[in-house]
């Protein structure tokens, strides 16, 4: 092991260094497997914003999203030997993030159901799981944009995970149908119909905004 490291560091001295930014995802993974920390840092750099945004839209909670996004990269790091280049790295990391996020909302649901204090107090965030359509008349136009984002975010958060995952990946993250199908381990037809159904559900919830 120690001998390996000596060998590699001497190799690094003689090779002309390639800037990490020019390497493909798979090359970065290979370098990370060899123990190259800067390669892993570049992976984090590439994917931290999309993963954080994805999880933020999924959970509608920025702190949680950052926490789980960091956890995603930790999982990637420790499971890097098990990653095979059969499919794109982005697919792989979105799948890890999705699994973490789904288990997180299951945990939340358990907490809500199981907590004794929850029986006696009525917290505002208890309502996030079910949002009835908002039928009030709209306020001034300049307020609409900020409020609209909040309402849309809440509406997304009320979707069941099996619709929430694909519609965020499609309409917010802009992934292809094929990639979403791979991330969710579903057929292409099922994925498409779920996205279509998710849009229909959101349209119902957001009908006052368009």
């Amino acid at each position: 092991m120690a001998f390996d490291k000596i060998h590699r560091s001497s190799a690094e001295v003689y090779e002309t260094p390639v800037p990490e930014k020019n390497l493909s995802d798979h090359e970065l993974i290979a370098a990370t497997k060899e123990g190259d920390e800067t390669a892993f840092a570049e992976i984090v750099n590439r994917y931290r914003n999309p993963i954080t945004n994805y999880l933020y839209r999924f959970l509608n909670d920025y702190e949680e999203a950052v926490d789980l996004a960091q956890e995603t990269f930790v999982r990637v790091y420790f499971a890097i030997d098990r990653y095979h280049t059969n499919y794109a790295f982005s697919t792989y990391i979105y799948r890890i993030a999705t699994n973490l996020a789904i288990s997180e909302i299951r945990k939340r649901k358990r907490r809500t159901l199981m907590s004794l204090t929850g029986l006696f107090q009525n917290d505002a965030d208890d309502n996030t799981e079910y949002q009835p359509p908002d039928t009030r008349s709209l306020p001034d136009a300049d307020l609409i944009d900020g409020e609209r984002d909040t309402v849309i975010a809440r509406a997304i958060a009320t979707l069941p995970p099996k619709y929430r995952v694909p519609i965020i990946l499609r309409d917010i993250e802009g992934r292809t149908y094929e990639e979403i199908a791979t991330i969710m381990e579903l057929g292409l037809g099922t994925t498409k119909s779920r996205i279509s159904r998710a849009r229909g559900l959101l349209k119902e919830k957001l009908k006052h905004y368009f």
Partner: protein
Amino acid sequence: MNTQREIDTDMTPDEREVSRLLGELKRVDAPANFEFGVKARIAAGKPATAAAASGVWLGYMKFVVPAFLLAALGGAMFFGGLAGDSDVPAIAEQRVNPVAVEETLPEPVRDEASVAAATEEPASSGPETLPFRESFTPLPAFVATGPAERIIRPLVETPVTAAAEPAGGSVDRALSPAIEVNLPLAPVDYLKKYGIDAAVEGEVWRVASVAAGSPAATAGLKSGDLIESIGGRKPATNPTFQHSTGPMALVLRDESTFRIVTIE
């Protein structure tokens, strides 16, 4: 990441509108210290969410709790065993008094004949030969004679004479096979135990033959092999060996090479 957005062709106008609204949502970025947080967690070496941490804790408990229970059980048996030993004489004393034994015995079903026998016999034969003692306490007799017999039997061929003459007993012990087994073995005899017939030849042992089907044959030893050392000891040191049947490590030697063979 949003650059490769393609237009879905088969959307209804409503769906297109929803898709547009979602696409226009403000994107959030990771905080500046994001990478630092990742590295800190990696340095910590394990998944850092609360659930994972409690999982690790439960994982430890899985081992700690049974270990504690086992230790408690072991302790209870140890002290219980001591208490049991100390109870034995107390019970034996109790049984001298037949009335007390009657009270502690669990089965009340007795016909009058045996009760009568039990109450009459002590009166006829005296307190030393209590019938209850004979019939219910074989244990003290067994304990008293058992160990003595066990010590004498394996060591001495003729126990009667040995028991009669304590001085002769020690001589018998020195010559008895039980002691002889513990004498250290010469290397050649030691090798024979593993099926190797060998003799010293200068600085090595030369293998004359290997018994078919022996552990040595299984390990690939052949006649003519040169053994450099047995368990690290060379012929020049005049080594002796204990009667172990564990693995034996041999260093075999050619003109130029050495190899190590372990024989189970």
